């Protein structure tokens, strides 16, 4: 099996290297063929591995590939742990990645137009893009397949690097290169916590290996650490690691980079900033469940952060007018749902939502990209409308994706999101009732922003200019095939996987849950099949709130809009201070810009000018040089020349010091 796993990881890497370094030689077709081949191999093998786990009861694999280093008795290794959780992630990552690769052929077809004519970096940008997304696939696979903290961190940073390169793909656009710098730095703030968490693990467990750490964890559950006036070791480790997850999975207050990351081309918004990379934090916490289970403090923290993000980021989605930004805020909100599930110890539900979300959110982004292609790269939904007449496949698939997103009964998102809200409702740790309330209300917000977008884009009268309208048509098959391929699981995967994942505990040993913290067993205990689950769900508040959101959206942005085309603007004006607050995104960006970015520059300038230059250089260094110069001037009668100064200083120093030594 090791050969299979190595092939899965290396095939995309080799594709990336060939397309990246020899893109000019092999041309566009060569580049997309070789990367699609690499990712295709990885996808087929991953799905084969997944099927082995599903139907052949494959045993978990845990093995070392090579020893990175041995220092101070601690082994740092590169190796794979493939169990059911990993296999599921591998399947999701490679499948979505393959769809995105195919879609990119269409999306990037006239990328040359996006570059200034004389820019050499624009040549082969097509090939470079394929190289990056294949490199991303490699990094993400390294992350999910790791069997130790070192490689986890490697994958963690490597996906961050590719994200940086892709957000700033258009290196000539100021907005893009500001966004990628911001993304990298905010993620680094998370990694700052993450690496301290890893350091704590190394110190107390003496190992980086998951299996060893998890085996020792119960014995260390009661250990206290003398930091912050004394906290439990597990709380410290879990919260530090979770700070890393807050960066990568864009949880408040480290969420600020994700909306800006929409500067990257749409395929990577789907792949990296919706389906896979941003869910790395969710995966990581689930992987670390044996540790998180030992600290209810940390779980509460996770739960509250997730729920707050889910609700408040959804609200911001209501006032966005850029099609990708609406979907981006929706992603933030859905990530909050996943994180909240983890906080409630419903790891399986979090992973379940991760999977369904990967499909329907990738679908929504790719559909948005399809719309953007048709609109000649105008992303403002106020200029759209009536697109369903021109792009039927995009329209239908986007509708299916939206229904999955708002948890419409029967769609994949319904099963996963309902399970999360219910699990949080059963949780008894601190903050659980607040989180339950926020997540329930979130259902209304989700439906409202999703269908505002849907109606503004696909229904009503076309609002674009005549030139754009006359050119509107459905996108080519390389774009629509991935849409259809993603729409199928978006609709059905929940129905087929809810039972094994949430009821039959398919993930098994990959997840550890303490019996007294288990919030999913209620679901299992009252399980009477999918139909009954849907019927039960339709009697609960989230369903009605979601329907209310849908109806309200239909009323304003379909019914009223036909009579009053300015209704969207009027609604925002009527919102008053609330609209302003949401448009400011609660002021996080301003605050960071002023306090962190501006503050550190002011401090830096102050230290440089006053301490380095004025104090050390002017006063001490040049001062003593002047003093020596003055002294030399006194004796210059005898001899001149610079070296004399030094010789003089040297002898003087020697005499003084020897005297000192002799007297001691």
């Amino acid at each position, binding site marked *: 099996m090791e050969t299979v796993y190595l092939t899965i990881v290396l095939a995309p890497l080799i594709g990336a290297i060939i397309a990246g370094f020899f893109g000019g030689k092999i041309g566009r077709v060569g580049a997309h063929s070789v990367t699609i081949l690499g990712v295709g191999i990885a996808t087929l093998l991953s799905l084969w591995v997944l099927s082995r786990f599903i139907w052949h009861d494959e045993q978990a694999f845990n093995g070392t590939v090579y020893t990175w280093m041995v220092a*101070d008795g601690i082994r740092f290794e590169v190796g794979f742990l493939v169990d059911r959780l990993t296999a599921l992630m591998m399947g999701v990552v490679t499948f979505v990645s393959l769809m995105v690769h195919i879609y990119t052929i269409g999306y990037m077809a006239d990328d040359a137009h996006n570059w200034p004519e004389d820019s*050499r970096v624009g040549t082969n940008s097509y090939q470079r893009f394929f190289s990056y997304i294949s490199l991303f696939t490699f990094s993400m696979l390294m992350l999910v397949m790791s069997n130790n903290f070192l490689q986890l961190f490697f994958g963690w940073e490597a996906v961050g690097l590719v994200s940086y390169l892709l957000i700033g793909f258009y290196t*000539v656009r100021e907005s893009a290169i500001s966004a990628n710098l911001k993304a990298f730095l905010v993620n680094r703030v998370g990694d700052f916590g993450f690496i*301290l968490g890893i350091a704590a693990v190394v110190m107390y467990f003496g190992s980086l290996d998951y299996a060893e750490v998890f085996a020792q964890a119960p014995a260390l559950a009661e250990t206290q650490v003398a930091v912050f006036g004394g906290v439990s070791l597990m709380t410290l480790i879990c919260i530090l690691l979770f700070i890393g997850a807050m960066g990568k999975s864009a949880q408040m207050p480290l969420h600020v980079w994700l909306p800006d990351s929409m500067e990257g081309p749409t395929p990577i918004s789907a792949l990296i900033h919706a389906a896979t990379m941003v869910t790395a934090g969710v995966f990581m916490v689930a992987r670390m469940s044996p540790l998180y289970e030992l600290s209810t403090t940390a779980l509460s923290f996770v739960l509250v952060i997730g729920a707050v993000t889910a609700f408040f980021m959804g609200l911001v989605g209501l006032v966005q007018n850029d099609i990708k930004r609406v979907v981006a805020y929706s992603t933030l909100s859905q990530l909050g749902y996943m994180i909240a599930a983890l906080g409630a110890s419903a790891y399986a539900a979090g992973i379940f939502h991760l999977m369904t979300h990967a499909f329907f959110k990738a679908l929504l982004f790719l559909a948005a990209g399809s719309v953007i292609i048709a609109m000649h790269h105008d992303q403002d939904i106020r200029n759209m409308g009536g697109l369903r007449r021109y792009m039927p496949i995009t329209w239908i698939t986007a509708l299916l994706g939206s229904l999955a997103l708002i948890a419409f009964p029967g769609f994949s998102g319904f099963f996963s999101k309902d399970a999360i809200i219910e699990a949080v409702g059963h949780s008894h740790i601190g903050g659980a009732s607040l989180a339950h309330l926020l997540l329930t209300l979130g259902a209304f917000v989700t439906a409202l922003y999703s269908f505002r977008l849907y109606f503004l884009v696909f229904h009503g009268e076309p609002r674009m200019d005549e030139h754009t309208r006359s050119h509107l048509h459905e996108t080519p098959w390389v774009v629509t095939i991935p849409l259809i391929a993603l729409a199928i699981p978006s609709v059905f995967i929940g129905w087929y996987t809810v039972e094994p994942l949430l009821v039959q505990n398919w993930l098994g040993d990959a997840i550890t849950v303490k019996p007294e913290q288990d919030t999913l067993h209620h679901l299992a205990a009252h399980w009477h099949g999918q139909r009954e689950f849907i019927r039960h769900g339709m009697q609960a508040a989230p369903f009605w709130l979601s329907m209310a959101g849908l109806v309200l959206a239909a009323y304003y942005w379909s019914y009223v809009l036909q009579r009053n085309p300015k209704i969207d603007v009027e609604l925002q004006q009527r919102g008053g201070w609330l609209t302003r607050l949401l448009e400011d995104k609660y002021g996080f960006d301003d605050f960071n810009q002023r306090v962190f970015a501006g503050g*550190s520059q002011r401090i830096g300038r102050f230290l440089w000018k006053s301490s380095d230059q004025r104090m050390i250089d002017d006063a001490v260094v040049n001062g003593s040089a002047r003093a020596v110069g003055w002294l030399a001037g006194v004796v210059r009668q005898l001899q001149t020349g610079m070296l004399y100064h030094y010789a003089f200083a040297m002898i003087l120093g020697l005499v003084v010091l*020897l005297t000192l030594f002799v007297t001691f």
Partner: protein
Amino acid sequence: MLLEFPWLSLVIWLPIVGGIVAIASGEQNVELTKRIGLVYAVLTFVVSLVLWFGFDATTAEMQFVERSAWLPALGVEYHLGIDGISMPLILLTTFIGIFVIIAGWDVITHRPSHYMAAFLIMEGIMVGVFSALDAILFYFFWEAMLIPMFIIIGVWGGPNRVYATIKFFLYTFFGSVFMLVALIYLYFQTGSFDILGFHAAPLGLTAQILIFIAFLLAFAVKVPMFPVHTWLPDAHVEAPTGGSVILAAIMLKIGGYGFLRFSLPITPDASATLDWLIIAMSLIAVIYIGLVALVQQDMKKLIAYSSIAHMGFVTLGFFIIFAIFQRAETAGAVMGIEGGMVQMISHGFISGALFLCVGVLYDRMHTREISAYGGVINRMPWFGAFVVFFAMANAGLPGTSGFVGELMVILAAFQADFWFAFLAATTLVLAAAFTLWLVKRVIFGEVGNEQVAKLEDLNRRETLNLGVLAAATLAIGLWPKPLIQVMEPTIVHLVQQVQVSKLPTVDAVDTVPVAGLQP
């Protein structure tokens, strides 16, 4: 046996002879002179590989030892030898030596034979510093090093080179005078200039502290540590590209090496007493200097400040071990010193490469002002790729060598105190901020001006230079094991050595004053 051959002497004197040959070749045939320089540099590197492959990585003993009388009347010997600490640094020196020769290939038109000679002689002297086991021999190489560096900056430097050279000379000379006094004192205590003999000499705490401070003045200036760092940005700004590379990649390491060869083993009790001072200076270097780097307007100054911040990790790794001992622990001590060592080697590659990158731009545009650039990648995509790569390495991205040392030092610092690790880890954000912001302003964006629009991408020589350094950075990042392996026995031995008190009385072991930043 092959190992009986005086390999170390060969590595020291081969480039020095090469330098003399280069001068003798005169200025008539420039091509010939350059070839001579390159041949000698490559030859020296090839010979130095014997030190790697012939090295016995199972022992902490000195190897390739050469010992003969030099000045018998004073007890001064020609005594050379290497262990797991000096050997990697010697290889770094001979490796980097090749690139500085290539860096001056086309751009040095003023007395190229002297340029080649200065760098070759410099290289031999630095190998001498790393391999000398006699204190006077060490001091001889140590001071001799200043002369070629003084000439390199003074002759091929920028407009303000006189100020920079004087400042550089004053600073380093100031430091080394005190070191000489300490060495002479140790000679009177032990009756010889044998450095290994110094290691074994028992010393009272007062004497140790005075010696420690004398060494500190010498080494802190070289590293350089806050607050004696202000010579470095000036020296870098005025130095030619090759000079900056040597300065950053190797000369700074001599300070770090000094701590390991002298301060720690000779004055372990003083090191344990004053560890708080070094730890504080190191953490200040990481944070204060990181913030100062952020606001620099000159590319070379920015990278110079970045060097100081990164060298802060080196000294932190070396002295964090005493804070670990104070917790009655030893786990993490070896990791800390090894982390500092790896950081030195890695910084050699990365800072060397970054200075070469600045050189590439300077050769074309004759300015180092960040604001004079913008959108360079539009004209120089390959160069842009290299800069982004080395910037990421400078920010400590896993998979590059820059990550290895940082990780190890942070892990070790955590063993000592949560807050040390906390402060050290701020480099993850700070280093990324100052490096990537530089990249954003210089490399990315729209073409900044007419001059940028005329830029041509890397030529084959520049590509080779940066490509090899990138490969080295990746190799250590992806597989640091061999490097750690050769250092491990020496560093384990060193850690054991510094745990044994040198105070004369037996019960003094328990009364070593405990100081530290911990509450």
